[in-house]
């Protein structure tokens, strides 16, 4: 894990992707529900950024917004910018976005069965991606697809190309999705809970494949998950989200060893580990707030053991507490 | 302790009341459903107080002097080829037409619902046999089958309802069975079994309430076609007997006169059938949504 950091670019370099002050809401007939309040993060070239949080924290919606994939009449991109290679994707037209989607930024979803069309063979679906984005001949496309399938360690790829998604197991399908996502050699791959539906031994295979491919192609990953263990294995840096906001951001090992934000601390502490001495798990009390009754101020204050008066009133500014380590909590705010 | 219990009962009553209010509020939010309900209420009132609106005499009395007249002050909707007042026929026909449409639908829902629920819940041999019978019944042309039933039992209102119910029940059984097959696989059915709840209670308390949505939709869409089947039977003399007014029969009779340009004969019974069917559809949709607790906040 630590040797991976050596080829990480210097912090001063322009990031590959910069999301700043993103705010996304949904208009319902009753109210405007804010799913993402104010989210900012960077993804550097060749790194894996982990985004961790519970259901409804806005992690998926923030990342889908990068490609404006959250669409519909009731979606409002209220504020913020998403700079990818210096251009704002939020202000792009659909046509401009098409050129980026699947070519420079691709996605891997949680449920490979629903992301693959059951009526087409694996080969057809993979070929389609290349046909859209490159000028390769049929033969070249075929060879490239086979080569990619072998890279994700699918044996006898030529045969698999002719199969339909339902012929494959869950782990195989997810590896096909990964192969598809990396076909066009994208700069950034957004992986939304890619291993949540898989078994642990299959998850280990898939994570392994993803790491190897990153080494080979040098792409960046945004890895969205609720599983702290997976984040800890995969990510170089981690963003912790709660209630549509970023509460802490740090390098992985720093975050897990010295968490600052009470939410991050609670999350890490509540995870059972081998050789645990206590009889009961330390818990974060209360429930995850739903979109329509989000508390004012810091969304975590209703569950926070260290809540103060100011927490109920306003959301704290981000404060730097260490090298590349920021936290948004009144406890550490500079008075 | 007493006080606590009273407190509890009060809270429960409040919750019930709030629940009913919420259901009504949800229903009212659906403007189309409210519109449908208004029309339906008008139709039902007309059927109930038909005699007060226009005497039954007008609907059957023939008057050769005013044959095939268009709408006028004396005859609001005009007259038919025997000189009978169309308005009076519509008003008095509403009784039979609504009874036929709604009665057969209710009967089919209850019978089809129970058989479908049993088939879906128990499966096995019972299911296989019932499904084959349904296939056979559905293969026979509906009108022909109803004709046979009416011919065997005699042509009157009750037999007509029986005949139409028999032909429509198989499609209900199929729809309800497929809905129920998906419900019985839900974990809450297993949980109810673990709680020691008997099978028939599970069907009544868990399975059928959750199958209500699709059943209501199917039923409200079927009312109109029931009326039309009844009309078809009346047309060939196997349904409601002339001169008893009935919308479907009126529609069929109007077909000869239509070619001569007497469109009003077709228009008014047609609109009456369409409006009543539409209103039931709208009310059905509204009910389905209002009764679904998941949509309440």
């Amino acid at each position, binding site marked *: *894990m630590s040797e991976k950091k050596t080829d990480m670019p210097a912090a001063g370099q322009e990031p590959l992707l910069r999301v700043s002050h993103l705010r996304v809401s949904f208009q319902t007939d009753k109210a405007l529900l804010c799913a993402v309040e104010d989210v900012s993060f960077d993804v550097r070239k060749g790194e894996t950024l982990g985004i961790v949080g*519970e*259901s409804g924290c806005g992690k998926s919606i923030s990342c889908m917004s990068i490609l404006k994939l959250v669409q519909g009449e009731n979606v409002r991109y209220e504020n913020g910018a998403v700079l990818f290679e210096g251009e704002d994707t939020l202000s792009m037209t659909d046509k401009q976005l098409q050129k980026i989607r699947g070519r420079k930024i691709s996605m891997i979803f949680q449920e490979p069965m629903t992301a693959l069309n059951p009526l087409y063979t694996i080969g057809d679906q993979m070929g389609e991606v290349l046909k859209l984005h490159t000028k390769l001949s049929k033969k070249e496309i075929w060879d490239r697809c086979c080569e990619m399938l072998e890279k994700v360690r699918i044996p006898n790829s030529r045969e698999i190309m002719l199969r339909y998604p339902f012929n494959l*197991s*869950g782990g195989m399908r997810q590896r096909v999705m990964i192969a598809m996502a990396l076909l066009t050699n994208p700069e950034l791959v957004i992986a939304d809970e890619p291993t949540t539906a898989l*078994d*642990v*031994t*299959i*998850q*280990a295979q898939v*994570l*392994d494949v993803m790491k190897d491919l990153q080494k080979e192609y040098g792409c960046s990953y945004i890895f969205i998950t*609720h*599983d*702290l*263990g997976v984040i*800890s*294995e995969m990510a170089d840096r981690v963003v912790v989200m709660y209630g549509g906001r970023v509460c802490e951001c740090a390098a992985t*090992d720093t975050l*897990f*060893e010295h968490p600052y934000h009470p939410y991050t601390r*609670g*999350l890490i502490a*509540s*995870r*059972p*580990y*081998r050789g645990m001495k206590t009889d*009961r*798990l*330390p*818990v*974060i*009390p209360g*429930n*995850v707030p739903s979109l329509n009754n989000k508390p004012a101020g810091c969304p975590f204050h209703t569950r926070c053991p260290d809540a103060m008066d100011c927490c109920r009133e306003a959301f704290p500014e981000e404060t730097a507490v260490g090298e590349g380590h920021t936290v948004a909590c009144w406890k550490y705010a500079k008075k | 302790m007493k006080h606590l*219990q009273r407190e*509890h009962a009060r*809270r*429960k009553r409040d919750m019930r009341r709030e629940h009913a209010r919420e259901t009504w509020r949800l229903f009212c939010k659906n403007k189309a459903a409210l519109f449908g309900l208004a029309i339906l209420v008008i139709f039902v009132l007309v059927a109930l107080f038909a005699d007060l609106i226009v005497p039954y005499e007008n609907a059957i009395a023939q008057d050769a002097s005013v044959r095939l007249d268009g709408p006028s002050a004396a005859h609001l909707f005009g007259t038919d080829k025997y000189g009978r007042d169309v308005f009076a026929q519509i008003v008095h026909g509403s009784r039979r037409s609504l009874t036929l449409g709604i009665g057969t639908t209710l009967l089919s829902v209850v019978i089809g619902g129970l058989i479908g629920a049993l088939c879906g819940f128990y499966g096995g041999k019972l299911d296989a046999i019932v499904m084959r019978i349904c296939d056979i019944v559905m293969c026979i042309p509906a009108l022909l089958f109803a004709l046979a039933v009416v011919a065997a039992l005699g042509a009157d209102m009750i037999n007509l309802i029986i005949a139409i119910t028999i032909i429509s029940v198989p499609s209900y059984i199929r729809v309800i069975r497929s809905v129920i097959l998906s419900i019985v696989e*839900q*974990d*809450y059915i*297993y*949980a*109810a079994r*673990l*709680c*020691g*709840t008997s099978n028939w*209670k599970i069907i009544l*308390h*868990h399975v059928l*309430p*959750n199958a209500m949505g699709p059943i209501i939709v199917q039923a409200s869409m079927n009312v109109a076609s029931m009326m039309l089947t009844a009309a078809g039977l009346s047309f060939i003399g196997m349904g409601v007997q002339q001169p008893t007014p009935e919308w479907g029969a009126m529609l069929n009779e109007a077909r000869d006169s239509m070619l001569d340009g007497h469109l009003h004969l077709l228009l008014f019974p047609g609109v009456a059938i369409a409006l009543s069917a539409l209103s039931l559809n709208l009310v059905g949709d509204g009910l389905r949504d209002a009764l*679904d*607790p*998941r949509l*309440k906040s």
Partner: protein
Amino acid sequence: MDKLLEVKDLKKYFPIKGGFFGRTVAEVKAVDGVSFSIQRGRVLGLVGESGCGKSTAGRVILGLNPKTGGEILFDGENLAQVSKSRQRELRRRMQMVFQDPFSSLDPRMNVSEIISEGIVAYKLCDTRAEIEDRVNELMEKCGLFPEQAYRYVHQFSGGQRQRICIARALATNPDFIVLDEAVSALDVSIQAQIINLLKDLQESIGLTYLFISHDLNIVQFISDEVAVMYLGEIVEYGTTEQIFSNPRHPYTVALLSAVPAFTREEKANKHRMILEGDLPSPYDMPKGCRFAGRCPYREAVCEEEKPVWTDRGDGHYCMCHRPQL
């Protein structure tokens, strides 16, 4: 010792129907000869990957699916041999909490109706008021507020729903509860709350759990004994300490090593054993050891002969040809 539940050679085969007359053309052996027992007041963790038959085993034990073969003894009585009314009484004492707190609660019922269902069906209370008191008591015990009793379940979050499910399971005064992935669908911060609740209840009421899960961290926290299942068979059984510190079966080793490392220390100590390939198709099982196809230590004998279930000392059982492992 006091065995509350004993399962002997339990089998559950699902027929695959095919052909014009719906004949049985093949069988999926979801549970194929599983035996274990649970002492009163203990927690047995049943781990394995999806499709290994762990959930099916739980459902068959509770009678939600009929068994194909084997015996289930509850509190010393064979469930298949007692009278109908006795069986009903024994079934009352066995309950279950399901994985998905959304599909396991009837959306058309309020909380009070859901929790009281078992009380009413088994006639555990006489009057309406008693039932309501009992519901309130159960709700409080499970961390819910009695004033929520007449709300519908869609108004609750996943964690609260799972609390309702637990309250429902407790309503019939059970001794034994099958927890089928009971915390897997919950958020991380809620998982810990529910696990603590389950532990509290176990100690205060003296419950016995069969804890079915794929999450090894949680299993090792909550279980006293652990059984590892692979393709319908238990391949290893022992105390939590034995299984997690000294795994004998190569599949258990692989399973443990697949758990993502968390701290820097764990990452450093870890040696990964990544299994090749996927689970074999349940239609045609290998004739020898079922794990042979993916096992890094396989030998010729593994593909030919089925390994036997042997004691490796101190009640630590394992089914593998390699004696020293």
